[in-house]
Each structure stands twice: as C-alpha cells, then as structure tokens.
C-alpha cells in the first residue's frame, strides 16, 4: 500500500507516495519526472537506470524506494552539482567533465545507455582520478552498450580524467 516516503534526490527532499517495495526508478521517473535514470531491463543487468546513492553507483530498477530513506540520491541531472560540491567549486558547471567529454568525443550513438555510462564513470573518477585503460574496462564492465560505442566511452573517460586533474578540457 502506498505510504508517504521522504527521499533526498539531487540535494532536495521530496515527499512521494509509493509502496515501500516500489523500485526507486519508478519513483524517479513517474513522480519526480527525471529523465536520467531509465528503464532498461528491470533486472540490474544493464545499467541504464543507474544513480549514485551516497556516491555509490546503484541500480535504481531493483532498489526499493524505502531503501534510500535517509540517503542521498544523485541522478544524471544532479551530477554537475555533485561534482562541484566534491571539488569545492564555487560555481556549478553546466556539465560534469564526463558529460563534456562524451560530447567532445562524439561518443554517443542512440545514447540510451549513457545515463549509466556517465554515472558509473563519474563514480570511477571520484574514486580513482587517473585510471588506466584496464581499470576503466573493469570498472565499466557492468554497463552494456548495444550500439557498440565502448571504445569512445573509454576515450571520453580518459579525456575527462585529464580535464579533472587540470589538463586540457
């Protein structure tokens, strides 16, 4: 039965009416109308629904909304602010460096998987600012891309890593 649950998403508190077992994804999409996390498999196999929960990449399609009570959820839309807060930037950039790098590399094809790609890559670079290619491949391997854009995603992550550590943007 639906009950009122308060969740924190992109640094704002939201009161939503949902049964406790409702996957977070359905709340984000249908109640908060966010467009980052999206339905891909509903089985935590593909990564299209990924969000950060307390900075950890999490599959929102299998995470009950009640499980994120008292935690901080960040979606694709909130990544620039999340990044600015971590880096103690005075101004929130329009895009997270990973997002910018995806544009610079023209990595995207259909782009449906890019929510997960960007969320996961942002988590990776927060933990490991200068990953090797092997580390990128290992970190990202739970995220599928049906269009086959993996090579460009890897390039974009390398580019973002450089930009974040003060190299050329």
């Amino acid at each position: 039965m639906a009950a009122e649950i308060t969740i924190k998403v992109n640094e704002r508190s939201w009161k939503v009416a949902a049964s406790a077992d409702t996957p977070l994804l359905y709340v984000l999409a249908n109640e908060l109308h966010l467009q980052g996390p999206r339905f891909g498999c509903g089985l935590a196999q593909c990564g299209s629904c990924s969000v950060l929960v307390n900075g950890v990449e999490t599959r929102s399609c299998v995470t009950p909304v009640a499980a994120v009570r008292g935690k901080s959820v960040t979606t694709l839309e909130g990544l620039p602010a999340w990044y600015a807060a971590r880096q103690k930037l005075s101004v929130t950039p329009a895009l997270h460096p990973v997002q910018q790098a995806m544009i610079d590399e023209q990595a995207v094809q259909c782009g449906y998987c890019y929510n997960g790609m960007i969320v996961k890559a942002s988590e990776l670079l927060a933990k490991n600012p200068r990953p090797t290619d092997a580390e990128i491949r290992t970190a990202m391997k739970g995220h599928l891309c049906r269009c086959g854009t993996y090579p460009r995603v890897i390039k974009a992550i390398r580019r973002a890593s450089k930009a974040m550590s003060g190299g050329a943007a």
Partner: protein
Amino acid sequence: MNFPRREFLKAGGALIVGFNLSEALFGQSHLDPVSRPPVPGPPDAKMVDTWLAIHADNTATIFIGFAELGQGNSTALLQVAAEELDMDMSRLKTVRLDTSITPNQGGTYSSASIQRGGPQVRTAAAEARLALLQMASKKLDAPIEGLTVSNGVVSAGNGKSVTYGELTGDRPLHIPFTGKAPLKPFTQYKVVGTGVPRNDIPDKVAGKYVYMQHVRVPDMLHVRVVRPRGQRAYGAGAKVVSIDESSIRGIPGARVLRRNDFIGVAAENEWDAVHAARQLKVTWETPPALPGNRGMHDAMRASKTTDRVVLEKGNAAAAMVGAAHVVSQSYRGPYQMHGPFGPNCAIADVKPDSALVICSTQDVYGTRTGIARILGLAVDKVRVQYYEGSGTYGHSCYDDVAQSAAILSQLAGKPVRLQFMRWDEHGWDNYGPAHVGEIRAAVDAAGRIVAYEYDGWQHNWSLVETAEQLALNRAPAAWPGAAAQGVSANHLGGIYYVPNLRLINHQVPGGDWFKGGWLRSPLDLSLAFASEQTIDELARLSGIDSYEFRRRNIVNERWLGVLDAAAKASNWKPRVAGSNISKSRIVTGRGIGLGTHLASYGGAVAEIEVNRETGQVVAKHMYGAIDAGLAVNPAFIENQIGGQLVQTASRMFKEEVTFNETGVTSLDWNSYPILRFDECPEVTAVVVQRLDQRSSGAGEEVMAAAAGAIANAFFDATGVRMREYPLTPKRVLAALRG
C-alpha cells in the same frame, strides 16, 4: 495538447509542478517547436513546402521523413539542406517524424537516410533556393545570374541585399518541384563532407533528451502485455486456455484487458501494472514441439523448402572438374536478436473515430497502416508520431508494441502507456533468422577463382506481428518479396570476378520457426562467415596471402579501395593464413574480409586472441573501411564503423538465441549475453571518401566484412576453421579438439 493535471509535489517547502507535458512532448531544443498545423499525411511530396519552411527570422525548418536512431541522420540531412540553401547549420532545425507533419520518405532501413533521403532533401532545397533567388531578383532589381548567397543573405552586384526571411516572411512558398533547379556541384561543397557535430548529443548526455520511454500523456493508464515468457513457433502463436482474474485482485486498480488470445493488464500506477502482469495467472495451450537449438540446423536443412536459382552464369559444376583446388563446406549461423537497450515503448490514445500512437518505429507510415488495419479505422484517421527510443538495429518490437498499445487503449477506452518488459522484447522479437550455407568453390593454378556454388537455407521475415496474430487470430504470414531475405548476389560471388557461378536459395517454411525480421545487415554476417572463409581457404590452398589473393580476384576498383584501406590501416604484412601458428596457450591471428549489405563497399581486418585452454576468443583490434560514395558527414560514418565492428564482435563471439522444445529461453542479458567493456576491441575506422559518387548506405556494410575477418583470424591463429558461430568457448574447444 492539454497539460496534464498532476499532483503538486512538496519539495523543500516549495511547491513544484511535477510535470509539464509541453516539456515532455516537445522538450528537445533542436526539434522545437512543431512548426505547422497537422494534416492527414503524408503531405504532398511534389510541393517544396512539404520539405522545408523559411521563417521571417531567416531560419529554416527542414521536414525530414527519416528517423534519428543515433546514426546522426537528423544532422547529416540538415547538412545537405544547408549546403544547397547556402545557410549556416545554426539557422536550420528539423522536427520530429509525424504522419501529420513530415513527408513519407519510406522507412528508415537499408541504411537509406542519406542514400535515398539525401537527394530528396537536396533537390527540395535547390528548388527553394531557385524560387528565393527569383524573388530576390525582383526585389533587388538585379538579374538572377549576378546574385550570390551567403548564410541566407542574397546580395546583388548593385550593392543591395535581402535575406531569405525578408523575402518570405513566414509564408509558404506554394511552389511545386520544377525539376529545373540547378544542384550545387560537389566541388563547391563547404558543409557536406565535413564532420559537423551531432545536434542530439548535448541533450542526450545532459539527460534533457526526451526518449520515447520518457513521454507521458494526461489521464493515461500504465499497461503491460501478458504473454508466455519466450515465443513459441510463429505458426503456433499463443493460445489461452484460461485466465484467473482473481489472481490480481489484491493489486490496486489493476484489471485485465483481453481480445481473443491477446492479454494485457492496466493500472494507474506503473509498478502496480508491472506487478499485475507478473502475477496474473494464465494457462496457455502447450505448443507443438520445437527441435531446440541443437537440432535446429539439421531440421532446417531437412525441411520442405521452396527453391529458387537466384543467379546462374557459366557452368560451375563443369568448371570444378580439373580445377587446381576445390573446397566444399557447410556453415551455420544462429538466430540473433535486435535487443534494443531500452525495450520498446508506446503510447496510444484510441477514440471511436481516430487514434494517436506515439512510438519508436523506423517507419511512421508503415506503422500507421498496420494500426489502422487492426483498429478498423481509415488510415488517415490514425496519426503516428516518432520519439527516439534506444537503437533498434532493424525490426525489433516497435510495431508489436505500437499495435499492442493501440489494442489496449481501445479496450481500456483511455490513453495508455505500454512499456515492454525485458522478457517481452527479448522473447518476442522478430529475430534475425538462422542460416545454413553450403559452398563449393574452385581456383585454378594461377590463384584465380573459376567456380562458385552456393546453397542456402533460412526462413523468411514475418509479416503479421504478435499483437495482430493474438488479438485478431490473424494467420502468420511471410513478408512479401524475397530480395533481401535470401542469398545476396552482392555478396556471394559479387565481390570477386567468378566466371562460373550458381546461387540457390532454399526457403524454409517460417511457421515452424520463430518470427523473423531484418536485423542490422540482414543475413550478411552469416553469408560472409561462409563465403569469406571459403575465399580464404582457396587462398591458403593456392599458397597465397589472403589479402593478395583477394586483390588478384577483384575487378572493381571500389572493392580494391576498401580492401587496400583496411589492409593499410592494419599494417598488413603478407603471409599465408595459418602459416605462423604458435604452440602457446594463448595464440593470436589476423584475418581479412570484404562484405556489403546492399550498395556500399566494406572491408575489415580483425586481430584476435584465442585461449586454447578456455576456448575464449577476444578481438584485440578491428579495422573497418567503407566506401559509401559521397560521405556527407565522415565523422558520423566513423562512429558507425566503430559500432559495426564492436557489434559484429558481439554477434560473432556471443550472440545466439536459445530455445528449448517449448519456446525461446533467451529472455535477458544473462541468457543472451552481448560483448562487454572488458572484451571490447580497439577500433580503427577508415572512410574512403568519393565526392563524385552517389551516397550509399553506411550503417551496415562493414559488419559482413568484419564477420569474415574474425572467422579468418581464428583460422590464422589456430589452423582450425569454425563452421558455426557464435564462437563461444564451448564451440571453440570442441572445434580445437577436432
């Protein structure tokens, strides 16, 4: 459109309007706003206004009938228009596909957006330019010959100038095609042929792009279909024995919607609809037994087929006698699925006398025809709008989901949003058909191919979608026409000069098997897997390097061009295939292949690693070259080549629809694995630019070449030929053990 009434959400003390339909429906900046009143389509293709509109602010809207699928055609076709109109890209925009707005250019398949759509857009823009110059000539009181245009500003020799927008205001041109508008010579191209960035990418990475799965409409119900998990034989459909509606009684507002064997559930809340679909107890009739994966190819080979000689020249059988070397082998390919990353989704609002369906079809007009038939409405009473979903790579479930949504909306008497679940999409796809190919080919002592015979078995694509089959008891039927569904003469023997050639197609009855559809580069991977290995085998028996052997047997310079480009990119060093096999646990090999889909020329080289203990095969680096004539945007084609190489590696190493005696068992990404990051090759893409040649497709043609290259690399590494793909560890170990 009305704005939905949604509850207000309390957030941090402030009231936030939860949802705004205008944003959701028309939120894509480069597609905003819909710029003319809807008409029952298609708009008249002979009128220039159908294709473009010049606005008072000296911008233009180009109406394109092709779907953006992530390949970049919504940018590339604007480049074509920008070039011919002499306007900067920043002044042009396009609108979403809509049977009441955009022209009917046919479906977005066969990689035809640029090949077929380019000339149409180019001609329309040239006609508009001519009309605008005639208007400018009067206005500026200057002869038309002396006028020049720069970024939509027409200047005369007398120092006067006027913008397109000033000439037209927001008024339509009201002119038909004259057939007399001169086209700009390619030597003067400034925008076409350059790597303009894609206009959809910024919104896609920012989470602002409205995918089909994001669209909501007022007062809609969430619905799901209820089907057996995994389709049965196409001819069997799925017959309902009984439904226990009490099984979903506890779910708020959930109800069953049924038309014959078509079953759905509806609820106001999406999660409730998901729950209800899972929980509803339906007893299905036991279908006739399938042979299962193991017996599949033998059963296909033994079935009663419809045979057709596709091409015959010379006398292949006679030429085999006395040839220096003859090879004869059988090759097998699996069923593979489209597997769009986001399962298909549609919204339908069906009223007694009209219907609106929003979906991710590759062909809005084709989809409209099917929906009208099912609903019993006249075609012009149905409107179909396109929203991009995830890549479909061919005839995935987009028609099925659109038809299903229409049926469910009609039953519910309300607008509905139908999101296929992962198992619906995986389990009820129009799969790329399985294949058996048998080839005999011969070469003379000089290393020239003298004879080539091919026999192929596969079934046809399916015409009737599952929704229609179940809801209307419509008998399954094969897609009419045979051109792309059997052996392709472009491929087999068409690449090389072969004096004696015989190609035979054996059509297997489709009703005993699964629904079939065009899967990116249809059948080409299977054809190349068979044919390009045959060519390699002839090369090896002749003691000639695989690249050199191909050069010797090609007569068309465009095939030579892509062969050379792929070889050069990979720094190919001549040696006979399989002549350098190491004894180590992990062995490496390289292979080369050529291929096409319909018109363009594809070449590829693969460098792979085979672990002889585990049977694991990994592509380390793949090189792909394409000659698609005039490359309107070479950067987009490079991205397409990269995608084709990776997807081909996925299909050659991993992808295989599995099934048991009842039906399909590949229902998710674990049971239908695809290539992952850690298995992904490096890719190198080469576009052979041919400014003076007509543009042809670039979304598929490297795949066949890459399939051949991978298979040939495996032989080079191991000295063993794989006769069946995908090259899974189990299959590889069996082959290595002989």
